[in-house]
């Protein structure tokens, strides 16, 4: 490009001089507010504030509870994050969880009572007194987990295809599959839960890998209450998923193309991004996450539940959006979602401990969410000097 006259290159612009101290402080504050960790700071600040009034919140046992409560929600919220990034939405995750949970039960259950399950259409074929298909089989758990994830991905595939092939609005498509599959799950078991899952599976939701004991050494035998779970299987699953997801988003071609689609689908298409494939895959991923979450939840609750994840939808999307992911696409991070989830978990946990009467809880919950959002926009207002970016 030597033929371009150098004269055209622009003259140096801004005149930077070292700012005075107050300005530097202000910048420091700005930095804090600007930081993408903001929601995290906010949650922690909130938590500490409340714990002034309710010391029990700081009890190690409670902290360890919160830890265990974060993972399942995170697992599913990550899937939602992906979908939101490409300017879609997945309302069907709850029903996917239900189906997957049933699938898990159908494979794993070790024994079933005829009187309970006999009107299920699966009775006699997949379900018998001896339990599910692979009851007692050593590999059952592995197969089950894989299959649950696979089924989730399959439903995601159906959603994705409907959306990409027929240009159906994601909202309606996933709403319909929400209605359909949750009904289908209940139909399969005729509203019964598939009980008696093997312990090897339950461990995934309940068992610890690392536990800590915080009592004084003296005590002869440790009371079970004081054994706190630190690293649980669900933690490992969720973190692993999170790492993978983060990697996909930030490092791979696929991730970049997702953001492109979410920002401007037409431009992406003209730039040779295989939009249909990417979108379909994203919905599959979201479904798979739901399947994985189903593994954790089913294991926690010790049954294949056709009603699993019924009331989860708003928590999922709420956590994701509070984290900072945009509903209009092109903007979102796994880390943000983690923070959003942390915020929601802390919120629920604190509410449980505030000894509010049942009749006040919702009012308080609502106002806290509102306050958080308010603080968030206010800081943005400060940074952008009155205008909202």
């Amino acid at each position, binding site marked *: 490009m030597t*033929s371009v006259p150098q004269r*055209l290159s622009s003259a140096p612009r801004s005149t930077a001089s070292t700012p005075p101290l107050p300005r530097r402080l202000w910048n420091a504050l700005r930095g804090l507010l600007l930081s993408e960790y903001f929601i995290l700071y906010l949650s922690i600040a909130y938590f500490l504030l409340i714990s002034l009034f309710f010391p029990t919140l700081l009890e190690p046992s409670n902290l360890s509870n919160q830890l265990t409560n974060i993972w399942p929600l995170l697992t599913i919220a990550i899937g939602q994050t992906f979908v939101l990034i490409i300017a879609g939405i997945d309302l069907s995750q709850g029903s996917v969880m239900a189906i997957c949970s049933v699938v898990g039960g159908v494979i794993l259950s070790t024994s079933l009572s005829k009187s309970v399950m006999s009107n299920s259409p699966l009775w006699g074929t997949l379900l018998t007194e001896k339990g599910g298909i692979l009851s007692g089989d050593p590999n059952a758990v592995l197969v089950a987990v894989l299959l649950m994830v696979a089924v989730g991905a399959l439903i995601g595939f159906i959603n994705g295809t409907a959306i990409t092939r027929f240009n159906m609005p994601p909202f309606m498509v996933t709403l319909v599959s929400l209605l359909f599959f949750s009904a289908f799950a209940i139909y399969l078991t005729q509203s019964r839960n598939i009980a008696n899952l093997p312990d090897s599976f339950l461990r995934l939701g309940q068992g610890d890998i690392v536990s800590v004991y915080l009592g004084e050494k003296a005590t002869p035998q440790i009371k079970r209450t004081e054994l706190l779970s630190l690293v649980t299987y669900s933690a490992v699953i969720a973190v692993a998923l999170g790492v993978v997801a983060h990697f996909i988003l930030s490092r*791979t*071609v696929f991730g*970049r193309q997702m953001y492109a689609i979410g*920002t401007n689908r037409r431009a992406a298409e003209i730039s*040779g991004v295989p939009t249909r494939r990417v979108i379909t895959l994203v919905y599959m991923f979201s479904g798979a996450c739901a399947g994985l979450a189903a593994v954790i939840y089913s294991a926690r609750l010790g049954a294949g539940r056709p009603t699993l994840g019924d009331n989860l939808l708003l928590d999922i999307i709420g956590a994701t959006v509070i984290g900072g992911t945009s509903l209009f696409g092109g903007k979102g991070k796994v880390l943000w979602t983690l923070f959003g989830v942390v915020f929601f978990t802390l919120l629920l946990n604190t509410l449980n401990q505030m000894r509010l009467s049942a009749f006040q809880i919702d009012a308080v919950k609502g106002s806290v969410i509102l306050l958080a959002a308010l603080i968030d926009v206010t800081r943005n207002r400060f940074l952008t000097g009155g205008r909202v970016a």
Partner: protein
Amino acid sequence: MTALLTLQSISKAFFGVYAVRDVTLNVPAGRILGLIGQNGAGKSTLMNLIGGVLAPDAGSMTFDGKPYVPRTPSDAVSAGIAFIHQELNLFTNLSIAENIFLGAFPQRRGFPFVGIDRAAMRRQSEALLEAVDLKVKPESPVEQLAPGERQLVEIAKALQLDARLIIFDEPTTSLTTRETRKLVEIMQRLRERGTTLIYISHILNDVLSLADEIAVMRDGELIAHAPRVEFDASRMISLMVGYSLDQLFPPRTSTPTQTPLLTLKGISQPGIVKDIGLTVNAGEVVGLFGLMGSGRTELARIIFGLDSFASGEIVIGGEVLRHTSVRESIRNRIAFVTENRREEGLLMTSAIAENIGLVSLPRYALPGVQVVDQPRLERAVGQAANQLQIKSGNIERQAAKALSGGNQQKVVIAKWLLSEPSLFIMDEPTRGIDVGAKYEIYSIINTLAAEGNGVLFISSEIEELMGMCDRIVVMSQGEIYGEFTRADFDKEAILRTAFREQATQKAGDHAADPA
């Protein structure tokens, strides 16, 4: 003579950088003030200050003798200042009439009659459309209009306000020569009616022929303001860019070869194009000229695989294709710089680097899980950015939308450079770009040709095609009506060819028909 609007040492800075610096300007009443300057010279910022979109950091304004402090755009409107913005500002989901009257719908009077007085609205819109002679039903939705027609609607909008000051911000960029002529008439008519106009444009001849006074901005400052007679094209340019640019088109350093890169044989698509035959050779710049709606863009989309074609074949590097797709075209090393950067070219809110990298991500991925080789990509992106001299902050951070039109266009080109194409399809690559940037784009095109690439250069500015191309192909009504080689370039002849079917040509109205 009296000034309608006066600016007293107005300044506006963003993050410490002055966009407008200490500008003092008198806009003469009842005259046309031509305002010129490169993109980023501060014209648009200045207009936003006048229009109440931005608030000045320092300085004051008076309008019609009274102090004028607009807080919102509507303040400006009610004061009697109308804008015709650079980027069209129409609502595609509304009808033409509704767009014209959006700010102030005619209301039914008297009790039982409430709501919009559609009859009145229709009558008035028809009058206004007449004034900009756009022959379209006021009810027809804007989304069915061609860019040029939309521009005229914008003007009708301004007329409706019957504002005392109308600011035209590069109104002609999306117009065909025909429509431009029309616009000029309209503006003169306005002046006769006593309306004051500020006319911002990059097409210097238009400014020269139209303006009574001319003001020149550079780097946020007003560096010249005098009656037209004191200016000629070259002086204007030298004032704008700060040095004298003797000729507008850089010299071609290379000559085309005879090895065809792309050959179209009898490409037809019912209702769109018919029996198109066209060849682009390596190292050749082929101009594709045609009026708005002559089918040039549609043809480009077909070649690139965005739209399908019913019959005929495309031959690329000896390979015969009966149908093609975007990704296939990219594999075949074709690049497509689209007509509208905003909708189809860029991820406006994403970082410049993201944009440049987008097409070639797969080429910069490690085998296997397709992990992006970030360092390698960044290097390549950085190179491309420097090569094209994209003027920006940190390309990893700054969003594309923060760039001037010219630099945005360079980003689009850089994006394609990365995929190492051999054939460039460029649809109106210099639309809405200032002289300096245009010159750079031209130089880039020359270099591409010199490096042995083929360029299909689509434009409605004959001059630039004549300045740049080896051959010019003229399209009309979706057919190729003529072809000129550099030797016998002749503006009039080309235009005549393009207009040949004028009598039966109905592109405009066709587009406007609802249904």
